[in-house]
């Protein structure tokens, strides 16, 4: 059954993306996209965009039946702002919370437009790495979300497959090594490189509700301090 009012958002990238769908139809799509050298504005923009999207849809907080939140992987602070906001909204209006993979939302429009291709969602993970996940032409998740360096990126996506498309700011960033391995990357200005509000709404509408207490970011990476401590312990230090 299609849920009535879905409010979905994503803060995994520098952008703050918000959408509202009513009975399966996306009625409002908003995004704040900082320039390359600007800081993300998740804290300042997320709730205002939510209110704006709801009001464009002629709805209020009390009408929201489902809350879809992008759980990453992506920027740690951004993910936490999105999830803490979801938890607060869930406590306040009792809507069901649905964890949406930010990479799945990113890949969805490319998969619909290229049904015969393997599609990889690639986000810039900083530190010369990318967060990547990949779906084959049958829609199966063949590479679960992970962080890889540029030298391993093409191989991780599956460079030997016949038709492979990579989207996302990470695909643009590492275009050179991807195209070398015959992986197609759309032009930098293609909307396919952005997480769309419509995809978030769609995935939130079809996803399984999760216990809001267990709703956590898909960090993929552990905190640096954890890795350092583990190395120190395993070196007997």
């Amino acid at each position, binding site marked *: 059954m299609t849920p009535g009012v879905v409010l979905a958002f994503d803060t995994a990238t520098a952008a703050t993306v918000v959408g509202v769908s009513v009975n399966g139809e996306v009625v409002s799509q908003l995004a704040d996209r900082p320039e390359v050298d600007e800081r993300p504005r998740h804290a*300042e923009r997320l709730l205002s965009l939510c*209110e704006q999207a709801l009001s464009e849809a002629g709805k209020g907080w009390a009408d929201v039946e489902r809350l879809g939140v992008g759980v990453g992987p992506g920027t740690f602070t951004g993910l*936490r*702002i999105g*999830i803490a906001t*979801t*938890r607060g909204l869930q406590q*306040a209006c009792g809507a069901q919370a649905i964890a949406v993979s930010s990479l799945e939302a990113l890949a969805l429009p490319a998969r619909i437009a290229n049904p015969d291709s393997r599609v990889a969602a690639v986000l810039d993970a900083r530190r010369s790495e990318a967060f990547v996940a990949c779906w084959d032409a049958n829609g199966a998740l063949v590479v679960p979300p992970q962080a890889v360096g540029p030298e391993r990126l093409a191989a991780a996506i599956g460079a030997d497959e016949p038709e492979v498309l990579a989207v996302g700011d990470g695909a643009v960033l590492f275009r050179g090594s991807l195209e070398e391995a015959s992986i197609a990357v759309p032009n930098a200005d293609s909307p396919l490189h952005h997480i769309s509000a419509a995809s978030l709404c769609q995935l939130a509408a079809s996803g399984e509700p999760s216990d809001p207490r267990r709703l956590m970011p898909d960090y993929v990476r552990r*905190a640096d*301090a954890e890795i350092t401590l583990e190395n120190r312990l395993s070196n007997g230090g």
Partner: protein
Amino acid sequence: MSGPILAIESSCDDSCAAVLGGDGVVLSNIISSQGIHNRYGGVVPEIAARQHLQLLTPAIEAALSQAQVTLADLDRVAVTQGPGLIGALLVGVAQAKAIAAARGLPLVAVDHLQGHVAANFIGLEPFEPPFICLIASGGHTLLARVEDHSSYLLLGETLDDAAGEAFDKGARMLGLPFPGGPALQALAADGDDESFQFPVARNVEGCNFSFAGVKTSLLYAIRDLGEEEAEARRADLAASYQKAIVDALVERLTKALDASGLDRVAIGGGVAANGLLRSRITALGAVCHIPEISLCTDNAAMIASAARYLDDCSPQQALTLDAYPSGTRR
């Protein structure tokens, strides 16, 4: 009389939620301490933020249920806006904003240090201004003159380490676990506080503090004694070190009292738990107020208390509120 306030505090490594009645009485005060940082020997910002995301929701639920209120009973929502660890603060700020927005409740943004001051206003017999307030914890050390319920005048602050940080670092040098304050105090109880002369930073101007020197002196003392001797004299080292930190705090406090002509003192922050500091301050002869320890260490009841005397954010501010990090003041 107004209704209860729900407050959230997540500036460092305690995930806190509390409900304060409109009369200033604590209805619940939940503090989930993130013990996880002990193994790192200090608070790790990224890990603190991850923990807050896990711990705040249950803390808020517990605060509401212990206070026997629901969100529908609340008058306002208050949250620590800063200063503190930015990633940690943002978790609390985001959750508080969402609750307030979706329930149509006014939001109050509270400065963490104003919260420590306002811990003195909690309860049916609040400690009324004017007074001099010493706030000493692992994150801050400052002296403030409090003339009213909603602000304070900064008289002095630490130029380097916080007093609680000095305790933690000293404890670490003496082989004690983090957090070091309580362990160092226990060890000091068996020592002679006259056996080492550690510097009190009397040359620092005004009512400011510096704890970098005492830390370095302890390091040199341990090195000069050599491993065996230092081990044998740990209690003496701890006692002398503790005395130097407490001397520094009490001397500046005395100076602030003399300069202000006030004879009323309040203390806050985790270091307020230190027995030597408490007895030295009580001995000053001023009227002294020390909130119970759960209101001295970081907690959300003090944030709610501060909110009682502050204005609500405008609806626009409530939606766009951002946190501000350590080292900044609003």
